[in-house]
């Protein structure tokens, strides 16, 4: 199963992080790599049944039952204007905590945990008109990988389209 | 061994206040919400002090004091009654019934502890 992921992979032991070092959970969307701060991540789940909600932006897939809690599911592909993918049992939901709300992000697959030094974060490049860069913290390079780090508060709570906080 | 007090008042807030004060002074506290309740809770208990209000439904404080004094376990236990300044007559009745002393409402926790110190070893 896709949820069978070792979060400790490639990450230094707990407590050894330098002051300016941050850990990001990385995942892929259409072969692009993204990262969310690991402190925000509550758990990772396999894709489950989602109940659609009417009159919502397309990127709100609906709500799912997370052990009795009704949790909204955000489709990041759709949010980033990527081509829609068929979600199946290999898709993954990253459950995050933002401003005391619990939400799920559907992604293609989860990769690993990346240790990033603040200094190593480059400012977000202009990704063109397609993508609003307000919710991008910056870019992190790790070897030949390039990871787009997301600011999920900005993404989920303060974005006009999502208007979750309203 | 810690001391145990029976605190009887139909007013929850007063009872809690007295109970809390006594607990802070190291007492274990059993609460009764009127005379009848207190009498039921006194059975088989080992108490070192009773603090009771006088004006209560079901069984008032004076009857409670009389009833308690008939119980061997309460024969020599100090019993304090809570009175108000207008209840001189009640105070007399309470003493006649076997009360050890009294507290006049309003009182604060410190005053309560001082009076308790007068009657409990």
């Amino acid at each position: 199963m896709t949820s069978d992921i070792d979060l400790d992979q490639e990450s230094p032991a707990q407590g050894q992080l330098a002051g300016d070092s941050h850990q990001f959970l990385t995942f892929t969307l259409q072969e692009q790599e993204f990262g969310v701060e690991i402190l925000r991540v509550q758990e990772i789940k396999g894709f489950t049944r989602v109940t659609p909600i009417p009159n919502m932006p397309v990127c709100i897939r609906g709500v799912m039952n997370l052990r009795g809690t009704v949790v909204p599911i955000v489709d990041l592909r759709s949010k980033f204007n990527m081509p829609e993918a068929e979600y199946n049992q290999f898709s993954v939901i990253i459950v995050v905590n933002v401003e005391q709300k619990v939400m799920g992000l559907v992604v293609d697959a989860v990769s690993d945990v990346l240790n990033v030094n603040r200094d190593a974060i480059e400012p977000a490049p202009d990704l063109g008109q397609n993508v609003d860069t307000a919710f991008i913290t910056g870019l992190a390079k790790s070897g030949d990988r390039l990871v787009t780090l997301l600011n999920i508060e900005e993404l989920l709570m303060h974005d006009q389209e999502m208007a979750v906080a309203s | 061994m810690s001391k145990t007090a029976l605190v009887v008042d139909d007013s929850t807030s007063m009872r809690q206040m007295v109970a809390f004060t006594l607990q802070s002074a190291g007492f274990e506290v059993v609460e009764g919400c009127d005379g009848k309740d207190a009498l039921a809770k006194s059975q088989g208990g080992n108490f070192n002090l009773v603090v009771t209000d006088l004006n209560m439904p079901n069984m008032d404080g004076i009857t409670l004091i009389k009833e308690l004094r008939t119980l061997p376990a309460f024969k020599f236990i100090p019993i304090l009654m809570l009175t108000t300044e207008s209840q001189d007559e009640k105070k007399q009745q309470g003493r006649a019934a076997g009360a050890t002393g009294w507290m006049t409402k309003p009182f604060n926790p410190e005053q309560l502890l001082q009076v308790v110190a007068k009657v409990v070893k």
Partner: protein
Amino acid sequence: MQIDISRFRDSFFVEAAEHLENMEAALLQLEGEPENTETLNTIFRAAHSIKGASTTFGMDEVGKFTHVLENLLDQLREGVAKASDQLVELMLTSVDVIEGLLAAEKENADPPENVDEVISALNEAFQAATGGQSLDGPSGTICKAVNDPAKPSNVTVYEIQLLPSREFFCFGQDPYLLLRELAEMGHLLDIQADSSALPPLAEMNPEHCYLHWTIKLQTEATEAAIHDVFMFVDEATQWKVSQATASDTPKTSEIDSATETPADADSESHTYQTTPVAESTDDSTRAKPTTSPKSSMRRTISAGENETVRVDRRRLDELINQIGELVIGTSMVEQDLASFGAGRESAAMGQLGKIVRDLQEMSLSLRMVPIAATFQKMARVVRDVSKKLGKEVQFITFGDETELDKTVVDQIGDPLVHMVRNAVDHGVEMPEDRERAGKPTAGRVELRAFQQGGNIYIELQDDGKGLNRKTLLSKAIEKGVIDSAENLSDNEICNLIFAPGFSTAAEVTDVSGRGVGMDVVRRNVEALQGSVSIRSEEGKGSTISVRLPLTLAILDGLLVRLEHEVYIIPLLSVVESIRVSPDQIKRIVGVGEVITLRGEVIPLLRLHQALQRSNGHDNEDGLLVIVEDQGRRMALMVDELLGQQQVVIKNLETNFRKVPGIAGATILGDGRVALIVDIYGVSLMHRQPTNGTPASRESTSLDAINSSTQHAVVESNTDPNSMTAS
């Protein structure tokens, strides 16, 4: 040691509110029977309790006020004064004042303006009762012994003699404690025990005290302070305090006895004895207290029989939610088992399921409270309003013990007050008019509550003039609520009073006014997932019926399918479901699609469209669920009816936000989330100009009410001339 007692203030506010409720109830009862001692005692005890605790918690204003009230009550209790209508009125006002003072304490707000006015009225009443004796203010005498500051004085040597009574121990006294207390006052020079009174061993009663003591104490304390050490000793115990000179010769040798005040030092003061165990079991020696009745009027069950625990509301809600989860979890397991076991029933599972459902029922009952307190407030409303208007009203309640979810009870009060005011103001006629109509001069207003199925019904019935259809119709047309009176049944005309915009500020009277109409009542009731309707017979009176759910945590839902999704329509809104053929659906310009059902034109809403299940859905011979909201009917087209089920309501706002057209979500037995349709919301999303759709509502026949549950009769017999200026 400083002990913070402010934490008990909240408990005090809760219990003071209960006392005030009891007082109010008893006062209303007192109006009918002014000499009922038990009622007077209840009122007195409530005032007394509030006084005692409020002063303890530093709420001096409350203490001062209740003290004055208590003095007057004492006169009533003693039979010195009579509980006249004026006095009851004054005391009811006092209840309001205390409520105001408590609120002021709670919210740090200003006390009510009329405090001083009421205090002087109470004082006047007291003086009138006692023939001019004036009231002393509440004396703050607090345990003199403890508080008397010892005046600085020179060090003195006292000789103290202590002669305990034989029964000394039986008062819980202990000579050791007295000696210790004395020792703590200064320096003990000498203690001698005198054992001369000890009888021979054979005659000795081990429970008696035979020893006497003589103490020499060197202290700065005053003689008064030394006397205070003995404040608690029994009447028969004697002691004397004298100043010893350097040569230890006593100067005074006065014997004191433990009398309280000189006035009490009469013949009686020495006759008290501790009753020996053997005799005391005899009832005759036990004086029954005269002032405390065995039974009390309080509705709260005495704790001896049924102890109660106060629990934080949030924790209770949390518990109820978690048990709701447990129910869902259990049915998920049940379904899994059924699918694995291929139809084999698991006895263990059945047992577990039953336990869990019982548990849920029990947990919901924890939040249920009787409606009695709310009804009680209505008695006061009836009384005040009828007095003001000079009407005579007999107010009767049934089913006070009916229990409702606390959440519902908290929110039903205001609508009820409005309904009751309305009934007395607009329903019940003036006494002369009633007489002319051949009715008893006193109007009758009846408030009853009962449970029927999963609902609670609250009904308010008056025997007043009823609704005038003509006036109603012309007003409704004038206000633009309806276009014409056509096609309106009598019942529909009556229910126009609940239509939005029907009653306006123009008809505000001093009593029922305040700019809210019956439409607000309806909105409040519907916000509680309830409904309201009225039946009325002209000249004979009206009955308003409010239907409320037992609880807000659970909803009775109709499960419907739209494509692959399940939606829940609150069963409360569902009138019926019908199947129609495509040709029965008509399109009217400016209105949209409609169907005609038994002559009534009902707008059709394709739920698929409203909830975006599919845009080009053309299931023309679909199923229609006829629902009703705010008196408007609507036909919702769905794919299939799946059945009825109780569901636990989940808030979408918890993790997301409010969604138009959706009231919430729930988790079905198979674990998936189903959305609950907000009927009012979807009707707004799809609202066509339906101005003219009549308000229509089936009124449930509730005439067969078991009146055996009669609980309280409060008569408000009012003479308008007896009103006092206060």
